[in-house]
């Protein structure tokens, strides 16, 4: 039996070899030229691949290609080129020369862009099964200088809003991604930079107000190549816990190598800019207009960078040095940042790729005091009481700087200095065909020192005239470890599959300490040791670990039917309790209808997609503990108090999301991307406030909450003109989002610190929830007699826009290019706490005018004649007056729809002139651009800036303007030289 089998096998082998020999005996060559369909220009470096036998070629300088010795037969041949639409067609290769010329068209709608679709997967947009969005950062940073992610990303991605907490340089930002995932957590996406999960904290000082600094301010946008967004659990499930608010993937620039030859390019760039205050019209509503305007200045920007990149076939590099010195529009606000980056990719063998990303930053940020603070510039100018002027008249807003003298404020320092390293090393190994194993380790380590100094000599609330120094040190170290393996294979002809298994670990250690001393003996010797009185000192320590194991299986049938199924098991550290662990599944599918049906010619691409995924929010580290005690200092010494009551066995909250999408390309010029999503959060962690009389002072966490969200996202791109010299792209994004809290587990409404924003069943997240004021009450004579208000609270609008979006225009004509972006928000509300307090200090002119109209005592409005009670004019004034009663908040919640001309840039490339004068041998490119930001704003909001929030970028308080620094108008001039 064995002998027969052996003979049969040998015979088959010989027969096979004989057939193979015969088959290779007849070959032909495939040759042709590839050109641009619009211009007719030949395309150099386009790729031609016979996919069935994995053989290919690249077009030469004439746009020609040749693939020789191709066995005769019918093959699928793929023609591709960056920025052009890939063409796949069947070609019959016969003996001899087979000529196939191809005209390729520009991929105006970006369907060929490769985007990240999961933790270990990326694909072209054309076959993606989930809604993905990418900002090609280098396109924007080429002509404009962006301070941070909010400036670069804002308005460019449907479903992603980025809200600065204020206009202070270096202040934090807050992402609003879709409906915001679950109730727990910070509501912020997880951010990765070259595979490193980076610190996205908001750092505040020790109780003097202000916006705090955001750790994202350390990131240099000029180093960024692209930013991908996975906007919800449907796409981000494999990122596991904390991915419910989406995942932001930042990829830095890498070097480019040319096969067969080395290359180096150098780019030198400088941007000079200026920032101005744009709220002069709004400050006129206060009595102290001049003093308010006087605290603002023109801030300057000086930004310089040198980038060197290049490589060979075996190694590529990109390195840059960057310095950005930016002043805010208020004294004592600047950011002085220096960044250094070195990225390397090495290809020592065909099956091995080594990549290293290393970024170092040194960042010094000085912040002014603002917001709810008596030693801030705005606090001391807006909250000014009336006084008697030189003429003996009572004047509104006369007593400015009555809390703190201007000289004292000018002398206060609040400087944060951060050194930070973000780096990663990655190894990709392909031990066998189609198997790729990837391992990486990433590190984000930041050392911050914050110095807060109040000089002695001037009276400042707190230390009086004694002076005070505070030092804060914060060391944050976080490691990200990734290991995954991907195997690609064909199940049957045309059905490709891919299996990914992997694990991801995250380890964060945060140590901080602070120390405050007071009564500094000298104006010039001011170290903390010179402080006579110890005021306070403390430390904080946190070590958390998270781990996940994931599996993903994808299928792709002839780029027509695509499907993915996967899941992740997550684990997380807890305070001496059970390890929270949870499984997050995902499934997605897409179908290319243009490959299934014969669509009309004007519809060249049509895809439907659907995806479902789950993600979560971890409980806080201590949430699973029963009772924790902490120490307090007092006049009796140090004692123990009950600090926290938790819930043993608490689970991460689970957020489910399903999304449906349609993507189309019409007339080869119009791209459409529509997505509708539904989010359901269960087991959301709700902090139950026990009655304080129970003695429990914290909110006890329970898995009882629920919130629903849904939304619609649309992105439209249109290229009406595309010729050799001219191209115009028009784009628009639109976002609709809605939320409804469905369950608090019986808990009472949860309010922010100012009792304005609420989490309440039946209401939207962060809804303004206060007692409504209808107007005035009148006595029998028609005289104003008080406020007609509801006794119960009700909804008054939401600080997160229901509708938002942007319009963009990108135009190119020869060497000239222009970009413009208009952002808008509709159905959004802001609480004008600045106005509230201005009224409280009798510094609001309209309020005093109303008092005069009603015949009440007023200040500075004596020339206004009192109205007659009972008349419509009197009633109208009384109703307006009642709505400004300080006992009620509803009158200060304002509709704040806005529209901003966010960006305009004009750029000219001098390459033709360089060629004409023969300088192109020395200088490859010379680009000059001018740009502006926040050039025009129109809003229903009566305050200065409807986008800011006094409570920084994290707290439950949202949409509250309280003496908050507005965003400035900015102008830039950039010169970029390439060698």
């Amino acid at each position: 039996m064995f002998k027969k089998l052996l003979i049969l096998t040998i015979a088959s082998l010989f027969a096979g070899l004989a057939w193979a020999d015969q088959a290779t005996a007849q070959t032909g060559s495939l040759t042709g030229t590839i050109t641009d369909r619009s211009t007719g220009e030949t395309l150099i470096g386009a790729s031609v691949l016979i996919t069935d036998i994995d053989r290919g070629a690249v077009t030469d300088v004439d746009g020609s290609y040749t693939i020789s010795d191709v066995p005769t037969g019918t093959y699928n041949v793929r023609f591709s080129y960056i920025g052009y639409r890939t063409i796949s067609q069947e070609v019959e290769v016969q003996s001899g020369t087979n000529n196939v010329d191809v005209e390729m068209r520009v991929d105006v709608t970006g369907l060929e862009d490769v985007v990240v679709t999961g933790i270990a997967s990326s694909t072209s947009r054309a076959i993606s099964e989930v809604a993905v969005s990418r900002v090609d950062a280098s396109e924007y940073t080429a002509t404009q200088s962006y301070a941070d992610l909010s400036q670069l990303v804002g308005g460019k991605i449907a479903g992603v809003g980025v809200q600065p907490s204020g206009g202070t340089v270096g202040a934090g930002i807050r992402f609003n991604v879709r409906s915001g995932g679950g109730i727990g957590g910070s509501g912020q996406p997880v951010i990765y930079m070259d595979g490193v999960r980076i610190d996205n904290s908001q750092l505040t000082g020790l109780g003097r107000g202000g916006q705090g600094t955001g750790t994202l301010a350390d990131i240099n946008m000029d180093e960024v190549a692209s930013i991908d967004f996975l906007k919800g659990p449907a796409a981000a499930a494999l990122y596991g816990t904390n991915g419910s608010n989406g995942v932001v993937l930042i990829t830095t620039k890498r070097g480019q190598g040319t096969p067969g030859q080395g290359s180096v390019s150098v780019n030198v760039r400088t941007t000079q800019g200026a920032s101005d205050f744009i709220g002069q019209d709004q400050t006129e509503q206060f009595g102290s207009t001049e003093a308010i305007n006087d605290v603002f200045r023109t801030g300057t920007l000086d930004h310089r960078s040198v980038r060197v990149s290049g490589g060979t076939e075996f190694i590529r590099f990109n390195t840059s040095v960057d310095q950005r010195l930016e002043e805010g529009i208020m004294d004592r606000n600047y950011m002085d940042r220096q960044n250094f980056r070195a990225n390397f990719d090495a290809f020592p063998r065909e099956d091995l790729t080594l990549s290293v990303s290393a970024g170092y930053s040194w960042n010094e940020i000085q912040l002014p005091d603002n917001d709810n603070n008596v030693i801030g510039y705005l606090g001391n100018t807006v909250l000014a009481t009336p006084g008697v002027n030189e003429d003996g008249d009572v004047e509104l807003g006369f007593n400015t700087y009555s809390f703190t003298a201007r000289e004292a404020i000018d002398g206060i320092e609040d400087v944060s200095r951060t050194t930070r390293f973000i780096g990663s090393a990655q190894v990709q190994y392909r031990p066998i065909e189609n198997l790729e194993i990837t391992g990486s380790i990433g590190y984000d380590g930041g050392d911050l020192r914050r110095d807060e100094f109040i000089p002695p000599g001037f009276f400042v609330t707190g230390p009086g005239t004694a002076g005070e120094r505070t030092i804060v040190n914060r060391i944050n170290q976080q490691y990200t470890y990734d290991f995954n393996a991907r195997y690609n294979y064909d199940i049957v002809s045309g059905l490709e599959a891919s299996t990914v298994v992997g694990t991801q670990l995250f380890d964060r250690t945060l140590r901080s300490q602070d120390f405050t001393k007071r009564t500094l003996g000298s104006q010039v010797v001011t170290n903390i040791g010179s402080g006579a009185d110890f005021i306070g000192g403390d430390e904080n320590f946190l070590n958390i670990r998270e781990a996940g194991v994931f599996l993903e299986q994808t299928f792709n049938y002839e780029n027509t039917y695509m499907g993915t199924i996967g899941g992740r098991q997550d684990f997380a550290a807890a305070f001496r309790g059970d390890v929270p662990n949870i499984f997050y599944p995902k499934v997605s599918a897409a179908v290319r209808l243009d490959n299934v049906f014969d669509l009309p010619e004007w519809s060249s691409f049509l895809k439907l997609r659907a995806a479902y995924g789950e993600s979560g929010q971890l409980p806080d580290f201590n949430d699973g503990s029963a009772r924790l005690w902490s120490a307090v200092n007092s006049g009796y010494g140090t004692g123990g108090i009950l600090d926290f009551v938790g819930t043993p066995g608490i689970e991460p909250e689970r957020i489910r999301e399903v999304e449906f999408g349609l993507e189309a390309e019409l007339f080869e010029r119009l791209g459409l991307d529509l997505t509708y999503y539904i989010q359901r959060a269960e087991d959301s962690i709700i902090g139950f406030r026990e009655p304080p009389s129970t003695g429990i002072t914290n909110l006890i966490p329970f898995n009882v909450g629920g919130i629903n969200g849904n939304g619609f996202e649309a992105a439209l791109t249109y290229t009406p003109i595309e010729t050799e010299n001219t191209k115009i792209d028009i784009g628009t994004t639109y976002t609709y989002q809605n939320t409804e809290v469905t369950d608090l587990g019986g808990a009472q409404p949860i309010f922010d610190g100012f009792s304005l924003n609420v989490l309440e069943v039946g209401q939207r997240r962060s809804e303004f929830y206060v007692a409504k004021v209808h107007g005035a009450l009148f006595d029998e004579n028609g005289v104003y007699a008080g406020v007609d208000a509801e006794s119960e609270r009700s909804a008054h609008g939401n600080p997160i826009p229901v509708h938002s979006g942007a319009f963009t225009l990108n135009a190119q004509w020869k060497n000239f290019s222009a970009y413009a972006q208009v952002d808008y928000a509709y159905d959004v509300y802001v609480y004008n706490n600045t106005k509230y307090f201005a009224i409280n200090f009798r510094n609001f002119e309209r309020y005093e005018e109303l008092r005069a109209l009603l015949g009440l005592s007023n200040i500075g409005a004596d020339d206004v004649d009192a109205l007659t009670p009972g008349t419509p004019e009197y009633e109208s004034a009384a109703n307006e007056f009642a709505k400004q009663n300080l006992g009620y908040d509803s009158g200060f919640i304002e509709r704040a729809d806005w529209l901003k001309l966010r960006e305009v840039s004009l750029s000219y490339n001098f390459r033709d002139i360089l060629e004409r004068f023969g300088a192109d041998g020395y200088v490859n490119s010379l680009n000059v651009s001018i740009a502006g930001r926040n050039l025009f704003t129109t809003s229903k909001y009566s305050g200065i800036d409807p986008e800011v929030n006094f409570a920084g970028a994290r707290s439950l308080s949202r949409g509250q303007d309280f003496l908050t620094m507005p965003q400035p108008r900015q102008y830039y001039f950039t010169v970029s030289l390439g060698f």
Partner: protein
Amino acid sequence: MKKLSFIILATLFAFSFTACENWVQNVEPQNDVAEDEALDSAEEIPFLITGIESRFAFVYTRLTVSADLAADQLIFDTEMPLATFPTYRDANANWGNVGNQTAYSDNTTRGFYTQLGGFRFISDDILERITRIDGLSDNLRNEAIFTGNFYGAVARYFTGFYMAERPCGVDAAVGSGGPACFETLGAPIDGGPSINPRDMAVDQILPKLAAAEAVASPYQQRVINTFRARMLLFLGEYDDAYSFALDGMEDGDAPFQSLHSVQSANNFYFAAGIGRIQAIPDYRFAEYVDEDPAEANRVKIVPAEVNPDRFRQDLYPAQESPMDFLTWQENELMLAELEALHGQGVAANALGRVNAVRASHDIDPIVGIVDQDLIVEERDKELFLQSVRMFDQLRFNLWHSEVQGTPGTGLTGTAIGPWRGIPIPNDERNQNPDVGDGTD
């Protein structure tokens, strides 16, 4: 090779589950908190006792500012450049001219009310905890018993006497005054219904003080008796009040105080002191000193640095300034009042007691009859900024009718609001169905 690769990957995948679970648990422990059971040892009892004392100081200093603003000892003075807290303004106006929601979301009240509950909780907790600890020395056990019971009684006194579930009087706009308003006072313990001052005293405070007395030193016993006398005097139980006061604090006894430090500052420093003047003493205190400069020895006021036309309190000049909670002088004035006005003991002794108190401050004696006006004024001066003025105003029906403050500014001169205690905040009302919305 493919098969081998898959086997390796599958094995790694399977092992990674348990490895992950172990790895995430292997974190460095925190050092800023400890679990409850870790404190079940004799060595930790002093730490817990100190914690109770610290909460007493924290609550007392904050509650006193609000209580004296609501009464007529402190004025929220908008002429003071740093007077910005609307909550102080609201307390000064007895939460008039604001809706209930504003009164109930008063962040100043929330700040100390929450900690008041915690103060009561940890006072009770130590009594239960010592039953779980073996090997506790008698001294330490007695100290824990005294602390838990005495401060548990103080916490209940603050809860039952200072907080209010509803405004007083039929006229919700302006309220009323008088002893009947005691019925509106009170707040819950442990999530139950509000307990009025009388029930709180009889059912909870006095039994706790009795338990504390059993292990108390003679000085502590006298402090307890003065405390008992104060509450019973407020409640009109003059026989018992007199009896306890006779055994109360004596000349030479140190005042029973709350202690403060820069890390746990006397709240007056930032509310009505050098650190930040938002509230100033009512103008009558300047008149007291003007009439008799020796009164400055106990009515401690000085010209306000930022506005010398006005005075600020100087009783608590520093963050570390201790605050008297019970003194022998108060005990003596209680005896005087009980003898002169309420038929206790010998009425003729009252004058001597008043003068003994005055003498302790080097103030000349007075002559004549000890009547209600004299008692009220002496108590006003002697118990300056110690949070008892509101009870005297209620007992003697002396509640002011207008908001006092800087003439011509703010709410000064407008009708006072309806609250005669500090409104229980929403944190309690929203979570505790036994506490009404204040309109009952």
